[in-house]
């Protein structure tokens, strides 16, 4: 078998097809670039990485808390410290994520075929709210009891109470330490990969009439 015949046979395999597709869509120089466009030199472009940094601390502190059990932080000074670290990193995570959302919303970041990038961001945001909520009701204190009884009434009115019950501590803990964090992390990874594939969105033009041109072009109302 000649080299080219061998290559032809290999290209029929699904692994070779997936590899070709991945490298085509996301070559190494795009996955880990060493240069970026000039418009990135703005504070407005820093909130995505700040959100990811806060998420890293959330995941690390949450892993320590999960491995030590849900009541550990009540009875140990180190536990209280790790719990505080978890709480404040979540506060920063949402703080930076909301500003990231504002900056991207006001520059219409879904332009240039970036719809999937935008949508993965939306899903990550919604999944994060769910993760934060199930975290609140997993605290095993009066606060969590109050929040879960209030949320139970609201959720039962929508009909999801049979599948998502805030008074069921085990279910809430499973959602908080397994299902929702995994969802958030997977979606965030997809979000970052989409940013790499499509590139970071350029800012809108400074002049009003140029912005209108962009808006018209995007809505299909081309001159």
């Amino acid at each position: 078998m000649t080299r080219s015949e061998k290559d032809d046979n290999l290209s029929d395999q699904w692994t070779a097809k997936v590899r070709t597709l991945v490298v085509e869509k996301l070559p190494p120089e795009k996955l880990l670039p060493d240069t970026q466009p000039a418009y990135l030199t703005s504070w407005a472009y820093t909130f995505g990485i700040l959100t990811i940094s806060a998420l890293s601390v959330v995941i690390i502190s949450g892993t320590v808390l999960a491995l030590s059990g849900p009541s550990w932080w009540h009875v140990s000074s180190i536990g209280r410290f790790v719990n505080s670290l978890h709480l404040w990193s979540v506060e920063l995570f949402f703080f930076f994520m909301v500003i990231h959302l504002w900056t991207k919303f006001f520059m219409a970041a879904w332009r240039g075929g970036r719809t999937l990038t935008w949508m993965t961001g939306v899903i990550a945001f919604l999944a994060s709210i769910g993760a934060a909520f199930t975290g609140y009701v997993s605290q095993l204190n009066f606060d969590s009891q109050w929040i879960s009884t209030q949320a139970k009434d609201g959720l039962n009115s929508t009909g999801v109470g049979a599948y998502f019950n805030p008074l069921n501590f085990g279910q809430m803990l499973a959602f908080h330490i397994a299902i929702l964090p995994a969802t958030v992390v997977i979606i965030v990874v997809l979000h970052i990969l989409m940013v790499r594939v499509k590139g970071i969105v350029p800012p809108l033009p400074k002049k009003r009439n140029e912005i209108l041109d962009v808006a018209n072009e995007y809505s299909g109302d081309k001159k």
Partner: protein
Amino acid sequence: MVNLNGNSKVLHYGWFLITYSNLMVIVLMFLVFIIAIALPSPTRKHKIIEPNKEVAKDGQVISDTSAGGDDL
């Protein structure tokens, strides 16, 4: 400085109801957002590469797609 274990104080005006701590966080987010847009980045002083332009070592522009509508 701030007692986080006490009862939260709320701002209540008609239908509008929010704790002062939440209101403070939202105001702070607005401030950081505005500052981030207004404040020039210190990395501006570095040599920057024009977007959508591929430049050769001698400085000559090889390709320029900035006029294209691909990104819009």
